[in-house]
């Protein structure tokens, strides 16, 4: 604390110290945010190329040329990896978490500012490393974002499995290190740097979500890091952690006795908590916004906190539900399936409480709120396909089909992204001191909501009809042919939806420079970031130390002079 105070008593001068190697959590938050923004456009571009290839396999595209089936697999591998790591993990936690967690708890900065800077720049190195995989001989790997061994562990199992695959796993390993540093920082900051009066049970639900996400990250990324190092050893030093005796294209390989399932266990031990790493911050933002824009306290604050904890805890006990068809003992399926159904309960509690928050409120339809409502809708839709996939017996027809792709895209993809949009429209005035355009925000919302449903809802139908995932074409199997028109529809929907994201980007950058000036608290919110200047000064509160007297969601308190009570308002303002 003393150290960070000394560092931060003077704002650094000079462009490089201020904007590049900055120690200020706000600048680092923005760096994460813009890194994720670049990454999401790369990821979206890859997905559009995939969808175009599925429908017009021989089309010659400008700049790209003709996409081959193996290129399609590289695209899906890179799409998944970039989206999961550099968007869904980076923006909600690294971006918004970094910027707003310290301010929302009344701290001048993160606990370890240097570690924070290192964490960002390590993430940046990981991002450059993964992009490099596109440009090396053989191209990017084709083993999917899950990188199942031995496909990923052998260097001759397909194009892209040489240097491209090494870069892929190296990038993930570097990302793990970055995330571990970030997680430590978040946890320490939350536990140690809360302002006077900011008890744990007065923390905004966003802070709870970032805090629990950081704990998940700390426990999950270490395992993935180890798994990745073993994979690198298998690939480069001839070890056999994941590779048994295999014969590739008639050639007997030198490996003996390894277990392909070991990779799956380690990967999903990380991979399932990762789903919650992606979605918990979105849940936090949705809770914050639904309460703020309904002008009503969050329904069941304590239940929400316990639900976040329960999701985090159970999230570590369900990884086997990705492996019901893997050859793992069928008896374990009982336990994993039961745990998975159990994790649906706190998720349902959250949904009920969001509806309960809106019920009886006075809903304001500003753009951030539209995205929070969209988040709830997508969370419900994506969540309810979960109980299908959680049942081993239904995984027999559904596992590894488009149904799964539709499920996780709705819930951890689009719902999480709606959380980010909600966060962007909500916090933009605080971050940049100007308002975003409301009209374009609404247009962007409607097209994106309807568009994403048009892309991802049909995937459930395709999966039921038996369309396996990761197929580049549907012409080889007769029973898939009648699904091609539906696939065409999804491609058109994807093109329109992706094009509509330009509205967002233009609105973002235009408003940054030309938007109307924002007041300190444009949404009449209650949490601490709205008590300080816009944008916040270097030490967040301009030399003041906030003292907290109220819970985070005191809206429409009877007898209070306004319809909201700031967390720092004197205790006499309202009794509750």
């Amino acid at each position, binding site marked *: 604390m003393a150290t960070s105070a000394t560092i931060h008593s003077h704002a650094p001068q000079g462009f490089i110290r201020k904007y590049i190697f900055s120690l200020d959590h706000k600048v680092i938050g923005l760096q994460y945010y813009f890194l994720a923004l670049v990454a999401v456009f790369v990821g979206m571009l890859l997905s559009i190329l995939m969808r175009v290839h599925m429908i017009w396999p021989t089309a010659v595209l400008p700049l790209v040329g003709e996409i081959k089936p193996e290129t399609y*697999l590289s695209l899906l591998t890179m799409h998944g990896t970039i989206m999961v790591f550099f968007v869904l993990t980076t923006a909600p936690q690294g971006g918004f978490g970094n910027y707003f967690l310290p301010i929302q708890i009344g701290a001048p900065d993160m606990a370890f500012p240097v570690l924070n800077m290192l964490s960002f720049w390590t993430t940046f190195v990981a991002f450059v490393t993964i992009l490099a995989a596109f440009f090396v001989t053989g191209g990017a790997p084709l083993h999917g974002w899950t990188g*199942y061994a*031995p*496909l990923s562990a052998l260097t001759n*199992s397909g194009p892209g499995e040489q240097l491209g695959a090494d870069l892929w796993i190296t990038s993930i390993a570097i990302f793990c290190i970055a995330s571990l540093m970030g997680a430590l920082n978040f946890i320490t900051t939350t536990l140690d740097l809360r302002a006077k009066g900011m008890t744990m049970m007065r923390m905004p639900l966003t802070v709870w979500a970032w805090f629990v996400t950081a704990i998940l990250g700390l426990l999950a990324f270490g395992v993935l890091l180890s798994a990745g190092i073993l994979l690198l050893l298998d690939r480069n030093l001839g070890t056999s952690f994941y590779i048994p*005796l295999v014969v*590739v294209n*008639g050639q*007997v390989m030198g490996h003996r006795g*390894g*277990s*392909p*399932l070991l990779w799956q266990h380690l990967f999903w031990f990380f991979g399932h908590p990762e789903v919650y790493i992606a979605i918990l911050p979105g849940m936090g933002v949705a809770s914050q916004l639904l309460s703020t824009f309904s*002008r*009503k*306290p*969050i*329904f069941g604050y304590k*239940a929400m906190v316990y639900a976040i904890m329960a999701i985090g805890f159970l999230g570590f006990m369900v990884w086997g539900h990705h492996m019901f*068809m*893997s*050859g793992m003992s*069928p008896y374990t399926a009982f336990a994993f399936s039961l745990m998975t*159904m*159990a994790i649906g*309960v706190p998720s349902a*509690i959250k*949904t009920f*409480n969001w*509806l309960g928050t*809106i019920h*009886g*409120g*006075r*809903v304001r339809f500003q753009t951030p709120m*539209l995205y929070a409502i969209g988040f709830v*809708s997508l969370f*419900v839709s994506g969540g*309810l396909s979960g*109980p*299908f996939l959680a049942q*081993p*017996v239904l995984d*027999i027809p559904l*596992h*590894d089909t488009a149904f799964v792709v539709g499920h996780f895209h709705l819930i951890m993809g689009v719902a999480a992204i709606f959380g980010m949009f909600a966060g962007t429209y909500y916090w933009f005035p605080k971050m940049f001191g100007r308002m975003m355009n409301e009209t374009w925000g*609404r247009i962007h919302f409607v097209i994106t909501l*309807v568009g994403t449903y048009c892309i991802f*809802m049909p995937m459930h*139908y*395709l999966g039921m009809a*038996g369309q*396996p995932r*990761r197929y580049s*074409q*549907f012409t080889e199997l007769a*029973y898939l042919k009648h*699904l091609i028109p539906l696939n065409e529809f999804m491609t058109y929907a994807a093109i329109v939806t992706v094009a509509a994201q330009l509205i967002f980007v233009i609105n973002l950058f235009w408003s940054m420079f030309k938007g109307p000036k924002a007041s300190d608290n444009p949404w009449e919110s209650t949490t601490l970031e709205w008590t300080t200047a816009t944008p916040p000064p270097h030490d967040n509160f301009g030399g003041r130390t906030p003292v907290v007297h109220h819970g985070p969601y005191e*809206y*429409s308190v009877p007898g209070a002079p306004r319809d909201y009570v700031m967390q720092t308002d004197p205790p006499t303002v309202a009794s509750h």
Partner: protein
Amino acid sequence: MGLALLVIIWLITFVSTYFFAAKTWWLPHGASTSTPWIDHQFALTYLLMGIVFVAAQGALGLFVWQYRDRGTATKVTYSHGNTRMEVIWTALTAILFIGLNLMGSPIWASERFAPAEVGSVPVEVTGMQFAWYFRYPGADGKFGRTDPKLMDPSAGNEAALGLDTADPAAKDDIVTGTMYLPVNRQVDLTLRAVDVIHSFFVPQMRFKQDAVPGLIIHMHFTPTEVGEYEIACAELCGLGHYKMHGMLHVVSQEDFDKWLATREAEKQ
């Protein structure tokens, strides 16, 4: 905007539900003994989740419109929640989810816990980039030895699996690229993979199981209708994944015996 949101959310809900309910795209026609069980569990799950889906989306659309800001006249209920409601919906959700799970468990147990019955047809399925091979043990009922060093994928069939002809048990083994099974008899599958993970997926048999290098996995199913059924690979296995397919011919017992005899004759 409240009304617009209501319309959009309800419309999305209606259209999504319509295509499920109308079964425009549904599970393909099933032709195995497990089909009715799996399909019933699927339909039940679909019905229950469908009700929750429509109720939750319906309420979301309704609430945002009903409780829209209508100026200062709108009265807000100042409430931090309702513990009784929380307990009720937590309990209901738990019963729904866990009950559904328990109902599906016996089907899973019968599919995966019990070994194949006596008298079932033994077939070994081997996945390799990018083909399925099927081996029948011949009259001796024993699968002969295979040797990785003898594997020659370009030669196909017996040579692709590296069948060691020095082993007497291997002499009458038949290896084909097309699977034949007699109708109404259980098949005793032995699943293997030689290079990477593949997944043996026969949608119309309601059957899927990964074939994993280094593991020998035993499974079973029983076809109930004569016909031709497509086999797909459901686990990403490399650049030819999308075209790694095979065909399952379910025929009468006589036709199956005839087919086996012909293949044996060809081999001699």
